[in-house]
């Protein structure tokens, strides 16, 4: 009896250890996203759990300097305007190391957010601890989560970075609508098109 219990304990322990270890290659569809506490441009710290009534989350790794990120600024604002009130807050995170990419520092983020009147949180991934947990590689790189922080969509915002007026498929909007209707997004993944996240060599 004792040995069986020990084995049972051992199994329990192993399972919890696996669950607690962040996936090596970042989040996959169906994984539970890790929460974080990162400093917003207003000086306050923001976590996913701050949004108690959320039906889902639109986590966007983006930055000030990448030409693709710039082309998407107005579309990220549009996502916030359309969906934050519906229970899908947009949370932008700058994952770049400002020592590698001047212009992506915390002070520059404040300036850019003011210029573009960002109404959503724009957080700084100080120490670059959060983006590897998600497995973000680009700016912009989007993770849409459901109410339980389960990853439902990973990839690009839409299918035409260069020209907002010629977009055919709005991947993130479609993903949000699917989650709002209790369905799984299709496609669940696309390739995020943009600049590589800047890290020290």
């Amino acid at each position, binding site marked *: 009896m004792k040995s069986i219990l020990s084995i049972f304990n051992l199994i329990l322990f192993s399972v919890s250890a696996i669950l607690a270890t962040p996936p090596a290659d970042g989040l996959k569809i169906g994984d539970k996203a890790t929460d974080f506490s990162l400093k917003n441009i207003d000086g306050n710290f923001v976590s996913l759990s701050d949004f108690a009534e959320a039906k889902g989350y639109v986590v966007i790794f983006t930055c000030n300097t990448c*030409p693709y990120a710039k082309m998407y600024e107005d579309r990220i604002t549009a996502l916030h305007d359309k969906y934050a009130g519906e229970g899908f807050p947009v949370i932008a995170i700058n994952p770049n190391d400002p020592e590698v990419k001047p212009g992506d520092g915390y002070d520059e983020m404040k300036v850019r957010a003011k210029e573009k009147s960002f109404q959503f949180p724009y957080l700084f991934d100080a120490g670059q601890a959060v983006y590897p947990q998600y497995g973000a*590689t*680009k700016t912009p790189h989007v993770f849409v989560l459901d109410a339980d922080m389960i990853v439902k969509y990973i*990839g*690009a915002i839409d*299918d*035409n*970075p*260069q*020209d907002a007026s*010629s977009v*055919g498929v709005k991947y993130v909007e479609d993903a949000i609508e699917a989650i709002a209707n209790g369905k799984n997004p299709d496609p669940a993944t*696309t*390739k*995020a*098109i943009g*600049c*590589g996240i800047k890290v020290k060599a």
Partner: protein
Amino acid sequence: MINNMFGLAAVLFFAGYLQAQEVITYHDFNTYNVALSKTIGENEAVIVNYWATWCAPCIKELPYFEELSASYPDVKVLLVSVDFAKDHDKRLIPFIDRKQLSLPVIHMADPKANDWIDRIDPDWSGAIPATLFYSGERKQFVEKEYKTFEELEEEYLTFIKS
């Protein structure tokens, strides 16, 4: 006097004409892909380097491709820019002139990257620089930045001899 001015204008015109290479632009991946397949069919070996004027690591490795082409005239090297369509005149062409690129530059301006990245190679994350080596039916995809000419040369020689 009038003749002289005309002569000068003609010289300037031809100097400019000789300097700037003609850059073919594709707004649609399918058309580009057909042209690429044709080039692969017509050459012993083809190297395609994907880059953009806004990509610093790409710009750093461009001279290595120029050097490879000069050292191995049998390989056809294409520099395929994925610059934005709107930047063709104001960034891409001045960049080519400024850097005096001698390799042929192709502007692949189809914006729907999610539709074509996988068709170039399913392993491609979409990050640039990315380089493909082709020889007949054989193909090798490399998603990385070459830090030296020797690194690129070794990759090419390994590919061509395998």
